[in-house]
């Protein structure tokens, strides 16, 4: 198992955002964490990525405990996250954005530069490399976010709602990119609301509701799960365009 979340609970003041969540992600897998808004998905990501220290529980990455470590140390171990609202370095160009990532990873400046160009080609941003990051379209920003994450040569990628705000065409294109990334050997954990993406990409889905894990399994089974359906239908519905039939 590459990532092991063991009985993680997290409290914000008086509110328990996560309650006794346990899950495991094997190396090479592509899994999704889903659930209604406010279920605790991003809190879980933040705990895994080091932005938060879980109130209770342990998190292990490649056998090594990472809960409580600062985010930059976790990134250096090979676990990189992206942000739901893209956060490009706005005063830098697309190329420089990725370069920051490769410089953090490689000691040699020339290697870092070469790798940055390689990654830009890989995600399809090479022809917009000199543009300022702040001038990109939403779809391109998502690509940049991915490119920057790839710059750190991650073993595991946490993608936080990477498909949000995209047209169906853009979604399909990004889906292909995510699959290609997985094919290069990177383990991927997605938070997703767009069910079509979950069905199409994920091998396993973990469902969170009110901070608790209520179901786990292949997406096809999950969408038929009674508890899951009640969780979604009991709240504000946000199942984009992928309802199970």
């Amino acid at each position, binding site marked *: 198992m590459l990532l092991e979340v063991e009985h993680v609970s997290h409290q914000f003041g008086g509110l328990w955002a996560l309650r006794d969540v346990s899950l495991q992600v094997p190396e090479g897998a592509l899994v999704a964490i889903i659930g209604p808004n406010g279920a605790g998905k991003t809190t879980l990501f933040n705990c895994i*990525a080091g*932005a938060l220290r879980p109130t209770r529980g342990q998190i292990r990455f490649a056998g090594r405990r990472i809960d409580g470590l*600062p*985010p*930059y140390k976790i*990134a*250096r171990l090979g676990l*990189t*996250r*992206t*942000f739901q609202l893209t*956060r*490009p*370095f*706005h*005063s*830098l160009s697309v*190329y*420089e954005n990725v*370069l*920051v*990532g490769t*410089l*953090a*990873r490689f000691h040699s*400046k*020339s*290697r870092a530069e*070469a790798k940055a*160009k390689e990654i*830009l080609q890989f995600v399809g941003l*090479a*022809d917009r*490399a*000199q543009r300022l990051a702040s001038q990109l379209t939403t779809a391109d920003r998502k690509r940049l976010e991915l490119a*920057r*994450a790839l*710059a*750190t040569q991650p073993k595991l990628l946490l993608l936080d709602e990477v498909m949000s705000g995209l047209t169906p065409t853009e979604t399909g294109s990004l889906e292909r990119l995510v699959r290609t990334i997985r094919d290069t050997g990177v383990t991927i954990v997605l938070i997703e609301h767009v069910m079509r993406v979950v069905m199409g990409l994920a091998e396993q889905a973990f469902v969170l509701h009110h901070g608790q894990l209520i179901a786990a399994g292949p997406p096809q089974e999950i969408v038929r799960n009674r508890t899951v359906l009640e969780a979604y239908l009991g709240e504000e519905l946000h199942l984009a365009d992928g309802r199970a039939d």
Partner: protein
Amino acid sequence: MHKTRTDQQVLGTQKIPTSSIQRYIRFTLPILIGITALSVPPLFLRGYLLDVVILIVFWSFLGSAWNLLSGLAGQFSFGHAAFFGIGAYTSTVLLVRYGINPWVGMLFGAGLAALAGSLLGFLCWRYGVRGPYFALTTFAFAEVLRLFTNNWTFTNRSLGLQVPLIGGNSLLAFQFELDKRPYYWIIVAFLLMALGTTIFIERSRTGYFLRAIRDDEDAAAALGIPIMRYKIVAMAVSAALTAMGGTFYAQYMFYIDPTIVFGAHVSVDILMRPLVGGVGTPLGPVIGGILLTPLGEVARALVRTPPEFLPFADFIRGRSGLDGLLLGIILIIVILKVPQGVIGWCEYRWRQR
């Protein structure tokens, strides 16, 4: 890895000019022009005008030092007077009480300021004091030091300290009472050092990391950059350079007291030039210095002896503060309308064409 031409065409990365004529135009000529421009003032100016030029370079130097932390790294400091004062007091106290050479004292001051800044930065950034709260904390820090030196007998309390005159010029003693031109050369050397440091850092890995930290600290951390380490480095270098300016000031004015070196007006004066000229750009503080310093002097001269034809000449004669008022208005206009400063605005227009 070998750069292929397709890479460069596709990515638009710049090629360094290889022909010798191109190299001459791009690098050597501007340097020659710069050297010529810098050599003019001491050849033709004396007295008050030379003082003004020295002050222009002086404030540009301090602004440049501030820029490293607050422009490049994005950690806005409102209390750089703290480091200025640490430099001024360290070298002057060591000189007056123990006879230690001011150049040596300057190094001690720079070291002490770097230490103080690093400690302050670490405490703030470790415990989540960021942005405007960090700015306020630096302001408070300078104030604390002002009150401290104002009440400490070791620093002669509110009476301040006088740099003993040795009579005449001496590079060793860092004093030039008779002929002030060496002050000019020294402060120009300081400015070039600050500019050189800024440009060197900007192009290095550290520079990229600092700009990333400035733009989005959390995203930078998520990429594996140890942000605390880099912020402290920026802080230490910025503080050390500022402290050197403090020593220079003491040796130039021959007198310091807590309010003169730790006062809030110093912090504002330091940040004004980079702010107006272009925060975060190497030349911003210089442009700001060239624009604002003479303006301040003209405003001061205007109230001292206002031209007779002005209807309110009688009203303003002898009053003080017009320079402060003017600079305050300029600051407000710049922050509201042109926050990226003169250079930022020029770059923006350049990109529009």
